[in-house]
């Protein structure tokens, strides 16, 4: 019932000095535009598209991820794009702390708050805004431009709807879960 230990081969992961554990088999493009807060785990075959950024002179980060996050295997994180007044541009994708993204999920949201758990095989549409303390169930398809209010459980779809609410203590539960996940992800 508690999280089991999961081991990885030491050579397969790069561990940065801020404690991030990035798999060598992950597909990361444009790594100079990606910011990982400390102690984040990027699992194998996870795709992060840092190369899709707004064309501009200044150096802007296109994907910003917080601390104690876990990006599942085969997941895709790509910044959302829009044509506004004839100009096509990419907008930054911001993810908060303690976010757990399940495997095979496609994330194209504009922003994801902190303490969010996203299940497996989810699709988060363009410019969706997911606020803090939410749970996106497995297989949910969140439509573009949706706003998911705090403490909601979103399921099914398309378009995914709010089916229930989370208890008030869920912030501590998710925080403990993500810290436990990180602590139990050890090399053999």
């Amino acid at each position, binding site marked *: 019932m508690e999280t089991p230990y999961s081991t990885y081969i030491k050579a397969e992961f790069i561990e940065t000095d801020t404690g991030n554990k990035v798999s060598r088999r992950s597909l990361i493009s444009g790594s100079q535009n990606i910011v990982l807060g400390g102690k984040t785990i990027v699992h194998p075959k996870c795709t992060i598209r840092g190369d899709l950024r707004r064309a501009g002179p200044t150096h802007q980060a296109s994907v910003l991820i917080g601390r104690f996050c876990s990006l599942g295997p085969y997941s895709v994180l790509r910044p959302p794009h829009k044509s506004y007044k004839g100009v096509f541009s990419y907008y930054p994708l911001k993810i908060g702390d303690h976010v757990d993204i399940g495997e095979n999920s496609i994330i194209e949201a504009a922003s994801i708050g902190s303490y969010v758990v996203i299940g497996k095989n989810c699709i988060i549409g363009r410019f969706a805004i997911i606020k803090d303390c939410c749970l996106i169930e497995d297989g949910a398809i969140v439509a573009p431009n949706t706003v998911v209010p705090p403490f*909601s459980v979103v399921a099914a779809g398309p378009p995914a*709807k709010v089916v229930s609410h989370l208890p*008030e*203590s*869920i912030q*501590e539960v998710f925080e403990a879960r993500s810290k436990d996940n990180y*602590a139990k992800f050890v090399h*053999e």
Partner: protein
Amino acid sequence: MSSASNTLISVLYHCPCNGATQSPGGLDTGVRVNSEGEEAVVPNASSNSELEAQLKLPLQPNSELLVLRASAIENLYYCDDCSELRCSRCVIEEPAGYHCPNCLFDVPTASVRSEKNCCARNCFQCPVCTHMLSVVETDTETRPFSFACSVCYWDSREIGWEFEKATGISPQIEAIKASDQQAKEYTSLLEYWRTVYRISATSAPTSTLGGHSVGGALKSRFGLSSGLAGNSASTAVIPPYQAAGYMDTDHTRVSQRMNIENVDTVPPLSADLTSIEPQRIRLHMKLARRCRSCHHILIKPESKAQATRFKIQLMAANFLPTITLPNRLSPKTPVLLPEMPLRVGKTVPLVLRFANPLYSEMRVTVAACAPEQDSHVEVVAQQFVLAPFTELWEYDEDEDEDSDGSSSGERSAGRQRGIVDRQGNRVAIQLNLTPKAVIDNLTVPLFVTCTHQDDMDMDTDAPASAPAGGDSSRRTVTNKFWVYISLGPTVQ
């Protein structure tokens, strides 16, 4: 270890409330004493077997009611005035702020009533798929904006809603709807009946509460002697209703609708969606929760829609020990979870881990129920002490997990029999479980009693008495509750 078996394992805490009424008879909880008075009754090791014999299960483990009455500790609250566990059925909910789930705009309580619990800004629902509508630019020259749904591609131009500006949609919609005859007729009808109601309410004698004096004063003013005479006089004052512009002349259809006796068939939803209008999005409520018996606030959220913090948050996990089934103590030690599925007749050691959330020491007593038909549980360590929680353990934990020698050293130190591991504020104890029958979901009930000294100052005590007594502000708090541990199916 398959993850499927992990989802079947759960630890549920039973709340002995009756739902609608206050807390229960039957379970003695929250004994509160001061140091001069008598001590709280805590079952000690010698009388544990008697305790076991006396224990009466509140709910059979396979009862369907278990879903309602017992839940995981995350969903439970704790009233520190009553020193009792509270579940979502025995708390009073009240609104603590309204906001729109789409634009996350805080709506003041006065506007909630006037806007009929809907968002007054540009938040509308698609009539086809109920997703949120967004304002998009269209290529028409006059009135270039309209609503569009990004899921089903419905556009509001289909019903003729086109806007000149992207913001301030509400007044533009009012302007579109104002030309609708039926809507105008409806509003004037509503106004007429509202005035009728207002006048009849003030003149007619209102029932019981405070109606007598008002009725009497009005009666004397108008010189009326009886209620009946008053009613007819007031309604005669208002003229009958005049149609404002729209009148349905199809009398046969109207009379048919008014004389409907039974509705046997329901016509199918027409494919004609041109007449369905987008609805406004309903507001969400933030809830504050109070204890049902003492009305102490348990949950008080911050009023801002976006804030996820709470001004007051009394959750059970902060007062009662959290019980979990650990997988293994460190990467090198063997797996502690018994092999799933469990086999009938085979005694397996079941390890439970108790974590103390309080800043003071807690004494815990665990008792299993008297012989059950489904399983037999032997509690090896019946009484133990949990160390207080300090934030320092959070930082030390990483070191403990890595060095595999430390925890095994504790184990072999010849401590109390049945304690498998002791780490900071957590203790892992061992139970010997023997399933006796083949069932779908083996549930093991345990009765847990925890006692701790509460160092809080009592508000009612005068400060002058505190220094003299020394211990007079401490009290012993005991919590007793049943825990149901589900372990999945058993096989032969």
